[in-house]
């Protein structure tokens, strides 16, 4: 069975290294904060100027001066700090973040990322911090549903949609698999229990290759 969104976030969270500085993009990546393993101290960065994003506040603790990039109220962890926006993006662009977890519309087999506009003319485009993050963090990983609601593959030979950045994505977490972008193409590291490799390939435009040690992706019930 495909992972639900919380399970995709859980899977991405398992790979976070203790002590890492990590930016979580808006949407699915933001949910990763809820699944950070208890034995690790991870410092979450929010582009609006926060280092050390904590869990959502209780209803009585909401402070509208303390919000994340998705404009939701948050808390600050012990040891966290505030910076102004230009310094926040200095952190992003200057390679100070170990990792950014981003959402995507499409990812190509070369690691190209398209996540800022669907080119829908009735819909104003919004880039936010996506392009800064895509070229600035030390590593980019993407969380994305494997296909669109209409069933079209999001992992493509080439992106159809306008790029956010070329050749930046290193790992893709989907509801079906964990896939690495390598110099030799896309390599499937993990695949969910009841989906076989040909089925996964059929839902993916780009060519996939199983890792020699491919394993089963078994999330907890979430």
């Amino acid at each position: 069975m495909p992972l639900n969104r919380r399970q995709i976030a859980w899977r991405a969270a398992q790979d976070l290294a203790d002590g890492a500085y990590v930016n979580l993009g808006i949407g699915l990546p933001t949910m990763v904060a809820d699944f950070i393993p208890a034995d690790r101290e991870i410092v979450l960065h929010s582009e609006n100027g926060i280092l050390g994003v904590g869990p959502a506040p209780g209803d009585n603790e909401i402070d509208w001066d303390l919000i994340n990039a998705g404009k939701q109220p948050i808390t600050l962890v012990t040891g966290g700090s505030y910076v102004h926006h230009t310094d926040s993006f200095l952190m992003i662009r200057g390679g100070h973040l170990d990792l950014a977890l981003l959402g995507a519309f499409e990812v190509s087999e070369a690691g190209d990322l398209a996540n800022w506009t669907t080119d829908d003319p009735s819909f104003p485009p919004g880039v936010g911090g996506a392009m800064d993050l895509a070229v600035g963090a030390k590593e980019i990983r993407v969380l994305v549903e494997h296909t669109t609601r209409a069933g079209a593959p999001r992992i493509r030979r080439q992106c159809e949609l306008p790029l956010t950045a070329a050749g930046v994505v290193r790992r893709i977490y989907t509801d079906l698999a964990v896939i690495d972008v390598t110099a030799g193409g896309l390599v499937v590291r993990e695949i969910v229990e009841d989906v076989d490799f040909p089925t996964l390939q059929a839902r993916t435009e780009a060519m996939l290759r199983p890792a020699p040690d491919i394993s089963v992706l078994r999330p907890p019930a979430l």
Partner: protein
Amino acid sequence: MIDKRVRSLADAVAGTPDGAVVLCAGFGGAGLPNALCEALIEQGARDLTVVANNAGTGRTGLAALLAARRVRRIICSFPRSAGSVVFEELYAKGEIELELVPQGIISERMRCAAAGLGGFYSPVSVGTRLADGKEHREIDGRIHVLEKPLKGDVALLAADRGDRWGNLTYRKSARNFNPTMAMAASLSIAQVRHIVELGEIDPEMVITPGIFVDRLVEVPV
């Protein structure tokens, strides 16, 4: 004697010329100079270019200024958000121009102007549509685009505390664009929750030194 305090919102925004480039601070609901935006409607300046991260939400603040048709053009990174109804209407009708700039580049371009520099080379947006028309240059093996300074005629700011010299502090993530915009405009105007005596703000905690602020008005929200 230096006293940058003004008595009213009208005094605060007085003299904003038609056609001005207005830097409007805030991110999401935090650090927004809503009272100043609304005072600008009363003041009457038209044909404005607004620089902001978002394009207003609901019908107040920046959204009200847009609804009053005072803004010809907006330079921002993320115009859409929950409640950006005014902007979306104007955009769909072609009644507002949008210049989309990556979020970090907006603030870096303002800092560039603030710092008296002529431009900078950035790797952001290379290989994307937002780099179209920009000068490209390879530096140390990496392609960069040339970004130009972005200076405001007026900056509208929201701070927590301020004193008569214009020293400002912010609360938590309400800091966001305020310090950079304060530095990057010819006339910087702050609405502050609490005007305090000179010396009440610890010199180590001043985030925006008064040199960057021209006027401040108390708005206890």
